[in-house]
């Protein structure tokens, strides 16, 4: 009988290892014949550690389970799905999961992440098989047809990027997976790497077949040690089964890959900074052109794609580009794994077609704040995303709709704040974070971020507020149009949106105190 205890980092941080050990020990003591599977997370983080038991009726979940709950669970007959205050029932019937459209996260939490047979049972590597069958040109056409846009945040059409690399002659081409998921509020990449690593490997292999690349790298941030370990093991397993190496699935295509680990630099999530880091240098941003597709890693044509973009390819190749394209709206096609985070009651991974509104996601799915206090502000898209007030909750989750309101989707992370938030502090943090993480190459970012902190402090101290607001706006315009990359370039998003939508937080400290009286 199988018992699933997640090995996802969030579950581990909440005691999953202790839970697994307690279940193992108690089962042994009672002579119960069980097989504990360490699966990925289903993404209902408020219920983690979520334990599942395989019964004839299907899998029954219990959560959030602590080690001290385990004896009581055994007493209640949880091995047979028995009743208990922590009993959730069938996970797929839970509204949080039921309302999702899981194309990328189809297997996450269901399979044993490092079991190739499990992956194959769900059609694993059929995408690669088809890509090899139909050939590079047809594969690229299908990806273009799907409308897949880069899921890292920039949203560039993936198929077009691949076509550029395919059409650039070179003796060596690379597939680089950007797994430097540094945005606060995001963890989808981490979940896939820990919960469904073969899906990422298959996606990179498909990209390699399509573009003629023979070497790949996955650049994983060092803050994700479990993802690093899991991907390394998955790569070795894949290699041992001919899914990586000189002849992919026995074909003419050669492709192998290596896992590389970052070293704590947020800016290395920017593709050219990442390439510099892979080359063994300081993570300094490169000017574009040339595009990495023409001159990337070690000067060779390189595909740089986000984890989720690559993890979407299995579905696209198996079901066809048109099937993927039919989800979504406008120019935002397919599904977006959204991460509900921060001060939120029901936080976790929610994959859905583009088009749901921010309000539906936060109030409807997320249940509002964890603290129970009113939602005051929401930051979508990471530290460089705009802060939106409740008034903008009718904005649909769509690249263009968010841009029209001065925001951005980024990697799909939504961080919820209750009414204890001070947007002055948030704006100041945005500048401080930029200063801390700046690669240092361009002046608007390197110097501008520090000046930004200073100007905000002057405003807060009541020193010539009107003049300093004007100066801050000028500084933001300079950073927006003068920075070499989106780190300096997008800092104006959180700062200016905070000022625009929450002006009373920017009164001088003294005035704020008076206003509070």
């Amino acid at each position, binding site marked *: 009988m199988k018992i699933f205890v997640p090995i996802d980092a969030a579950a581990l941080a*909440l005691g999953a290892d202790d839970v697994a050990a307690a279940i193992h020990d108690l089962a042994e003591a009672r002579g119960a014949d069980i097989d504990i599977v360490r699966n990925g997370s289903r993404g209902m983080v408020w219920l*983690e550690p979520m334990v599942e038991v395989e019964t004839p009726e299907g899998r029954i979940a219990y959560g959030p389970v602590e080690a001290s709950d385990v004896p009581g669970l055994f007493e209640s007959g949880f091995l047979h799905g028995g009743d208990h205050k922590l009993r959730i029932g069938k996970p797929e019937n839970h509204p949080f999961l039921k309302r999702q459209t899981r194309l990328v996260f189809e297997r996450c939490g269901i399979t044993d992440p490092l079991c190739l047979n499990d992956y194959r049972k769900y059609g694993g590597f059929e995408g690669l098989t088809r890509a090899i069958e139909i050939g590079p040109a047809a594969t690229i056409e299908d990806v273009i047809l799907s409308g897949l846009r880069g899921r890292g945040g920039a949203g560039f059409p993936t198929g077009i990027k691949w076509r550029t690399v395919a059409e650039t002659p070179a003796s060596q081409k690379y597939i680089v997976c950007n797994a430097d998921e*540094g945005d606060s509020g*995001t963890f989808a990449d981490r979940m896939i790497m820990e919960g469904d690593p073969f899906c990422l490997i298959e996606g990179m292999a498909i990209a390699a077949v399509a573009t003629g690349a023979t070497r790949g790298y996955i650049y994983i941030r060092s803050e994700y040690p479990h993802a690093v370990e899991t991907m390394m093991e998955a790569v070795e397993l894949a290699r041992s089964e001919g899914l990586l190496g000189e002849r992919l699935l026995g074909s003419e295509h050669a492709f192998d890959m290596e896992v590389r680990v970052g*070293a*704590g630099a947020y800016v290395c999530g920017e593709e050219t900074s990442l390439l510099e880091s892979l080359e*063994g240098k300081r993570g300094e941003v490169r000017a574009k052109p040339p595009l990495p597709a023409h001159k990337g890693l070690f000067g060779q044509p390189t595909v740089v794609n986000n984890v989720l973009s690559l993890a979407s390819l299995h579905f696209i190749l198996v079901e066809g580009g048109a099937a993927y394209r039919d989800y979504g709206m406008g120019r935002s096609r397919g599904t977006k794994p959204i991460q*509900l985070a921060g001060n939120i009651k029901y*936080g976790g991974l929610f994959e859905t077609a583009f088009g749901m509104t921010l309000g539906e996601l936060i109030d409807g799915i997320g249940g509002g704040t964890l603290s129970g206090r009113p939602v005051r502000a929401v930051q979508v898209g990471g530290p460089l995303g705009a802060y939106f007030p409740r008034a903008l909750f009718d904005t649909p989750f769509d690249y263009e709709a968010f841009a029209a309101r001065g925001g951005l989707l980024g990697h799909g992370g939504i*961080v919820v704040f209750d009414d204890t938030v001070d947007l002055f502090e948030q704006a100041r943090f945005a500048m401080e974070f930029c200063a801390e993480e700046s690669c240092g190459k361009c002046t608007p970012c390197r110097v501008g971020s520090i000046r930004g902190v200073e100007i905000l402090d002057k405003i807060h101290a009541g020193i010539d507020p009107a003049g300093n607001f004007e100066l801050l706006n000028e500084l933001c315009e300079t950073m927006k149009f003068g920075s070499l990359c989106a780190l300096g370039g997008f800092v104006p998003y959180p700062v200016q949106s905070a000022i625009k939508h929450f002006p009373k937080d920017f009164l001088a400290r003294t005035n704020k105190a008076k206003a509070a009286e």
Partner: protein
Amino acid sequence: MTEDVASIARAVLSRHSTQEGALLPILRDLQKEIGHLPEAVLPIVAQALNVSRAEVYGVATFYHDFHFEPHGEHTITLCRAEACQSVGAVALCERAKARLGLDWGETSADGRVTLEQTFCLGLCACGPAGLVDGKHVARLTPEKLDAIIAKAGG
């Protein structure tokens, strides 16, 4: 530099000798095995990779993970990013600094504890999050933090 460190350096360099763009993996392995990156080891790396000492120093100082001084027996890392802020990380961080009498990156005088900051551990739906001696912790409260600090001998 001790012979121990020198021999670790030789072993690490030899392990990575055929790898392209190997400097970051080399520095990571060196720090993992020695415990920190002694400045004296950098010229050896530079020579092996046929790059300048300035270049190796430049890379070692660019990335937050690398530290030239040894850490304490225990390292407590707290996340300071937005999702954790939304559930009280700022106050928690101030509490940690006050209790330990340390600022970010500092080690206690008795060498027991180092306090570090990080910006996102990917535990954004169960913050405030942190790392204690490499092990993830989440849903931190002042009480849990105090217990962690006490256990580390801070």
